[in-house]
């Protein structure tokens, strides 16, 4: 279980990163926390001619919050964001979901942007970004663009990122929701979720639901939660539409069933 050979580059600036990406395109891989990339390399599941290590780039290791949004740079680890002092107050849903991302030890290295760039369908961070209707900021030598979460995550391990682009930051807009909830089911503590469900209730009582693990990417939907029965109907319909999928740990039917129950729970939690 040893990786194939690759070139290693540790640029000193984002400009250098972009130049390397422009030069190598999809021959190159960004190495952020390495918590998903290096297992795949060790297992020889993927090819990479060049690894571009961004983990030490101070200019990417920043968390900024202005009035509009929380901006998390590409070198910020999941634990660093969890330890950010105002997280629980201002971004309660992020604070609720982050502890489910792997383990203490993997969060010490795994980055927020790396998880979003990796786009595993049952990952928490892509789901959280979708719940906040956040954006992914992509930079290349061609310029900078901000892509909304729903356009960024396309399918399992597939995103809107072009081969020469770096995810420089992700932006979580300040929420207006008053109540939030996050639940997930995994086989073991710290495993990828079978499904993960989030809910946020706005001031007007409208509830946004999100789910990971039902489709190739996180899905969200606004639910009119006037009463439990109508919410249950809406959730049930949504579960049928999403279908879910079969894997070793859960059948599609079981995923639908879990969604119905978990979603009802989180809707009830935020509706109080």
């Amino acid at each position, binding site marked *: 279980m040893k*990786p194939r050979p690759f070139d290693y580059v540790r640029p000193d600036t984002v400009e250098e990163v972009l130049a390397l990406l422009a030069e190598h395109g999809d021959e190159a891989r960004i190495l952020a926390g390495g918590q998903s990339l290096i297992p795949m390399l060790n297992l020889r599941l993927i090819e990479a001619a060049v690894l571009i290590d961004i983990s030490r780039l101070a200019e990417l290791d920043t968390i900024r919050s202005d009035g509009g949004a929380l901006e998390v740079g590409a070198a910020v680890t999941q634990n660093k964001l969890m330890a950010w002092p105002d997280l629980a107050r201002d971004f309660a849903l992020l604070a609720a979901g982050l502890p489910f991302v792997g383990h203490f030890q993997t969060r010490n290295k795994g980055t927020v942007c790396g998880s979003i760039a990796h786009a595993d369908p049952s990952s928490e961070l892509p789901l959280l970004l979708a719940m906040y209707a956040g954006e992914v900021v992509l930079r290349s030598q061609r310029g900078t663009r901000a892509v909304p979460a729903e356009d960024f995550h396309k399918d399992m391990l597939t995103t809107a990122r072009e081969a020469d682009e770096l995810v420089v930051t992700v932006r979580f807009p300040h929420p207006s929701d008053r109540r939030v909830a996050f639940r997930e089911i995994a086989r073991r503590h710290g495993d990828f979720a079978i499904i993960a469900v989030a809910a946020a209730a706005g001031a007007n009582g409208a509830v946004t639901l999100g789910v990971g693990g039902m489709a190739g990417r996180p899905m969200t939907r606004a639910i009119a939660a006037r009463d439990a029965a109508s919410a249950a109907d809406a959730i049930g319909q949504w579960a049928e539409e999403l279908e879910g999928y079969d894997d070793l740990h859960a059948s599609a039917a079981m995923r639908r069933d879990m969604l119905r*129950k978990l979603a009802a729970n989180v809707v009830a939690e935020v509706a109080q």
Partner: protein
Amino acid sequence: MAESSTTTKIRRKEDASLLSGRGRYADDLPVPVGTLYAHVVRSPHAHADIVRIDARRALAHDGVWAVLTGEDVRKLSDPFLAAVKTPVQQWSLAVERVRYVGEPAALVVAESRYVAEDAAELVEIEYAPLPAVIDPVAACAKSAPLLHPQAGTNEVSVREFRYGDTAAAFARADRRIAMTTTFPRLSFTPIECYVVVARHNAAGGSYDVTANFQGPFSMHPVMARALRVKGPKLRLRIPPDSGGSFGIKLSVFPYIVLMALAARVTGRPVKWVEDRIEHLVAASSGPNRVTQIEAALTNDGCVLALRLDQLEDYGAFLRAPMPGPLYRMQGAVTGAYDIAHVDVINRVVLTNKMPASLIRGFGGPQLYLALERLMQRIAVELDLDPLEVIRRNLIAGEKFPYRAAAGALYDSGDYARAVEIATGDGRLDELKRRRAAARAQGRRYGIGFAAIVEPAMSNMGYLSTLMSKEAREKAGPKSGAVSMATVNIDPLGAVTVTADVTVQGQSHETVLAQIVAKALGLRPDDVEVVLEMDTAKDQWSIAAGTYSSRFASGTAVAAHMAAVQMREKLKAIAAKQLNVLPADVELSGGKIRSRSNPDNALPFGRVAATSHWSPGLLPESMAPALSETAAWTPQELEPPSRDDRINTSLTYGFVFDMCGVEIDPVSYQVRVDRYVSMHDAGRILNVTIAGGQIRGSFAQGVAAALYEEFAYNEEGAFLTGTFADYLVPTVSEIPEVEILHYESPSPLTPLGAKGLAEGNCMSTPACIANAIADALGVADVTLPATPRRIHALLERAGATGKR
């Protein structure tokens, strides 16, 4: 050592080094200059003919020394001997055909592991895929694809046994209750994988191998024969520390032979460190078993007789010492129950899966899942309390020593008493209240029980039960189980102990030091225990190694005997110097002194020095060296009788478990609410270490019940190839266990101890399965009871509920 040390909390001798990163595990040891590294190329197919292997591109790769294939192996070695004579041949690399995903098909040897893996991708193997058979029952069908066409069948061994008059008992029974259980495939994968470093000395025609092999050393002749050398030409060394085994490290043996051959081909030392992916796909597995079991009953739930048809699936090859798990429990097949009549059919089948072999529990989990699920079913069908059914059938205390129908001699116990204490101190009433309260709220809560007999120290003759009595008579009797230990004292009085066990975390060092120190009047710290093994220099027998809980009732006894021999010798030496009679000498507090006049004393070291420096001063006719070896084999381990009765083990402990589980209505996870485990393991040698062993095997029992399974699809693809899919539980998944002890010392071992490290591997899967059956009101519980399976069960019952 007569009294128990249940009150002393001792520090383990091995811990300080292990906690400081100073362990000496197999991969930590220095390797000879010039060592090469190997990587195994493995079959991606469950079943295929090897059409062609082209290694030219791999050999042309920089840093590559050799590529070995089945053809090389066939030229340089012989097939492995097996315990069952069949026309099946197996080698250390696939010859002509691969029979499971992950089967070694070629070996690349290069200057580093990284380079070897690069080159492995360049080895071109052309396969012609064949139909595979995965399900053991399907494999017995006439139409099934044959793994070994020359054997003519996949069902390579079938034996029927009759103990008592089962037919008559069934004829007079009020009721019959039958069921089928399947025990899954899993392995208690140690965190340290296999490691082998092999050297070949062409001039001497000998091999020198270091590997984290763990015994039994009956495999040594198997390896030597495969390498075509006499035993002493294969020197096998076992490192001082091991990162766990649980039986799994027996199966490193084909790789020992393979690396030895690679060393011979390259003329260089060759090292191989198995990685986790290789370990999961191909190292070893416990055998899966399909058991059809039927009881003949009275209306009040007394079992008059049993019939068992046990179909055990060993994967692609039947490796020595298989089919051990199918026969290890043979004498004790009636478990903890007083059942006079039992018929058993043992069938061995081969399928396109990795070969199965030794694993903690070794046949017990499979047997007890069937037996204990049956007891629960009897209660349900007769509308009796399941605990009452168990009680009615337990062997009564006054019947010990008890000869079980199939031949086991249960040495001691009072099962009813142990159950009474367990249900009392373990608060069964509270468990019942919890169940009632949960059910009142519509929650799915169930209670399970399991009562099992835990054998220890296997009779080396038990496997011969699988031969007919005529064949046995021809082959000569096999029985017994030798244990050996040596105590040495150096000129300054320092004591060292060596013994025929391999280290794997069971605190052998600590316990041996304790036993020997006690006999010699020293502190455990005064005794060094050296357990790295070297077949060229250490005492060993085919029984050596660490498996089947042979330590407490075997090696520990030998160590005690060697220490007592040494004590008697020192007394005689000292008597002369103290001018007293040997009977008046005692060893105490680091001194050797006169019992009647304690001031007349010599330091321990002084007496020892006499033997080294002044052998002339020794009592007449005494051998001079201070080195005492004791070998012990218990008389009770006789060969199988003519009517196939066999005392499969020396001691038989008792475990009674009860638990409450709840099924989560959303996640379908089984949550263990409370678990109580009562152990009668005879005299407890060390309560801390006993607790550690019990908790460890309990965690593995929970893993087998709820998490771990080697999953294959119908075509034989392996689905659980990483630790992300093969679910070893973390701390979050292991519930608490309340441990209770009841001690009925074994009259057959000088220390009174029995085994205790395997019990929960045997009892816990059955106990949890029974609780699930109770919670869901179903008969058919498949292990591991994963959320997916629980969901499917409830779905079938229309009970997933859309809240």
